[in-house]
């Protein structure tokens, strides 16, 4: 009888371990840095790592070279209270974020660290590197996760956000995901928490060149758009113009309005293709995904592909001449009218930004 009880207890135990394949969690977060600071989207990835479970030890992986890496590592160590370790890969191969050395680096660090999860924000950096690293590790990664429901259960949008797919990762560890930064906002007070700085360790890069592809790509240049506006991905207010704005010259009205209320400027594909604004302002399925407190769309019809990039905004305002434009179906406040009348009136009547 006693043996029977013990046996059933044992069975229960082994059941539990089968349900939770990762008994202790350890997460590697691939972090981006710029000007000696960790990018906000990477801190969102740390937030996502935190929501995997309670006893998760989180390591940040930074790569780069020289002084800016050192500065970024120090910032990383005190950037978030949940970060327990900062790993740095210092080599001129990482001066620019090339996928070939980076993917090999993730492969190396995973082999020595045995992490249960590897996470990056799903910007152009994470989307470029993570799948390549996953292939080296023979793992199916999960893109653009918007909700973590368990250590191996995730929700991600498919079909331009018109359906939500719940997926379970059933493979051996690590479980790799890129997360949608706007779905994991960083609590503001964590940013200046200076106590409990994490340890900083160097990654052994002696076997980096084993991957023959590492030397096959070179960085030439970055043609960046310099802007004083808030970053589109993190802005509290976004003002967007579409085809209805008609010209690059007219788009300055959108700029002016954005400036007045402290907003970032976005655009539809039509506005980018017509050359009104550069492509990195495109909001949508294939551009940036935003979720600001206020999203104001001017001359935007509201194609499926555009809605995909802004449907999670808290308040949506649409101004369009066409009362049947699909944008009005997602707008909280709609105004049927000519944007060339409405914007000047808004400029006149809106209060200055605080």
């Amino acid at each position, binding site marked *: 009888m006693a043996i029977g009880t013990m046996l059933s207890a044992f069975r229960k135990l082994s059941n539990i371990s089968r349900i939770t394949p990762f008994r202790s969690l350890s997460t590697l977060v691939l972090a981006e840095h710029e000007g000696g600071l960790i990018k906000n989207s990477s801190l969102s990835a740390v937030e996502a790592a935190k929501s995997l479970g309670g006893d998760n030890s989180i390591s940040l992986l930074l790569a780069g070279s020289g002084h800016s890496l050192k500065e970024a590592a120090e910032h990383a160590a005190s950037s978030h209270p949940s970060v327990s370790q900062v790993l740095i890969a210092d080599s001129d191969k990482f001066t620019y974020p090339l996928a070939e050395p980076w993917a090999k680096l993730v492969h190396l660090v995973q082999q020595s660290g045995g992490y249960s999860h590897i996470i990056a924000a799903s910007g152009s950096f994470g989307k470029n590197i993570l799948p390549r690293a996953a292939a080296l590790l023979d793992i199916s990664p999960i*893109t653009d996760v918007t909700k973590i429901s368990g250590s191996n259960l995730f929700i991600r949008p498919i079909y331009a956000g018109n359906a939500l797919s*719940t997926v379970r990762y059933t493979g051996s560890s690590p479980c790799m995901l890129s997360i949608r930064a706007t779905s994991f906002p960083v609590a503001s007070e964590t940013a200046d928490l200076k106590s409990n700085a994490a340890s900083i360790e160097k990654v052994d890069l002696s076997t980096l060149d084993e991957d023959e592809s590492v030397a096959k790509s070179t960085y030439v240049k970055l043609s960046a758009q310099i802007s004083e506006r808030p970053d589109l991905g993190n802005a509290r207010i976004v003002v967007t113009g579409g085809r209805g704005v008609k010209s690059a010259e007219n788009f300055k009205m959108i700029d002016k309005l954005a400036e007045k209320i402290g907003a970032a400027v976005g655009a539809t594909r039509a506005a980018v293709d017509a050359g009104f604004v550069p492509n990195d302002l495109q909001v949508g399925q294939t551009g940036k995904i935003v979720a600001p407190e206020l999203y104001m769309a001017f001359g935007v019809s509201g194609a499926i592909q555009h809605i995909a990039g802004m449907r999670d905004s808290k308040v949506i305002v649409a101004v369009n001449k066409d009362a049947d434009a699909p944008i009005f179906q997602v707008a909280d406040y709609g105004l049927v009218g000519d944007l060339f009348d*409405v914007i000047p009136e808004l400029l006149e009547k809106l209060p200055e930004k605080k």
Partner: protein
Amino acid sequence: MKIMVAIKRVVDYAVKIRVKPDKSGVETKNVKMSMNPFCEIALEEALRVRESGLASEVVAVSIGPVQFTETLRTGLAMGADRAIHVEAPENIYPLTIAKILKALVDIEKPGLLFLGKQAIDNDQNQTGQMVAGLLKWPQGTFASKVVLDKAKQVATVDREVDGGIETLCLDLPAVITTDLRLNQPRYATLPNIMKAKSKPIKKFTLQDLNVEIKSDLEVVEVTEPPKRKSGVILSSVDELIDKLKNEARVI
């Protein structure tokens, strides 16, 4: 040099999709299917490279059920020289697709592999990066401009990244995934559609290529996103400012 282009058949981009009531997925029966828009751009780019004399042949590849050959016919009608269809179940994950593409690259030995940056159904944005990793080839993802230098055997690729446009130089052979602004795909003309019917489509099975389906992911359910509550149409700018200030409290 030969160019290989991977093509996917997806629900047409303009279709408003419906989630199945049993939550097993999205309804694809009796729904208009088309070539994934990013794949069209990849094929167009390959055709332009061939037309500029830098490549000798364009091979279109598609992996999926038998209906995928219709999409390959569209590719042949656009101008691909021949096609390869790998018979496989629907909805296999990018890792398996990447392994199949690697097996085909080992057979065909192309100098360039073009793919779209993402399929508009699963929105994964993974396959090109994965096949590049498996082949140990360099990758140029989200390409908005591709310039080939045949003498030096390099490709210069402009990439659409978060902060603007990044330019990379890749040794050939390489994998390039295409962004929307790379080009404007051509339409297939009727004579070319007729001609495409006699172009060859070679068939492979997963056994032929010695690839097993990796199933380390499982779709638990597919649901509709939460609906936004219906909004109001306002009559004046003053009313709008009042609502934003006093009701939504966002300005």
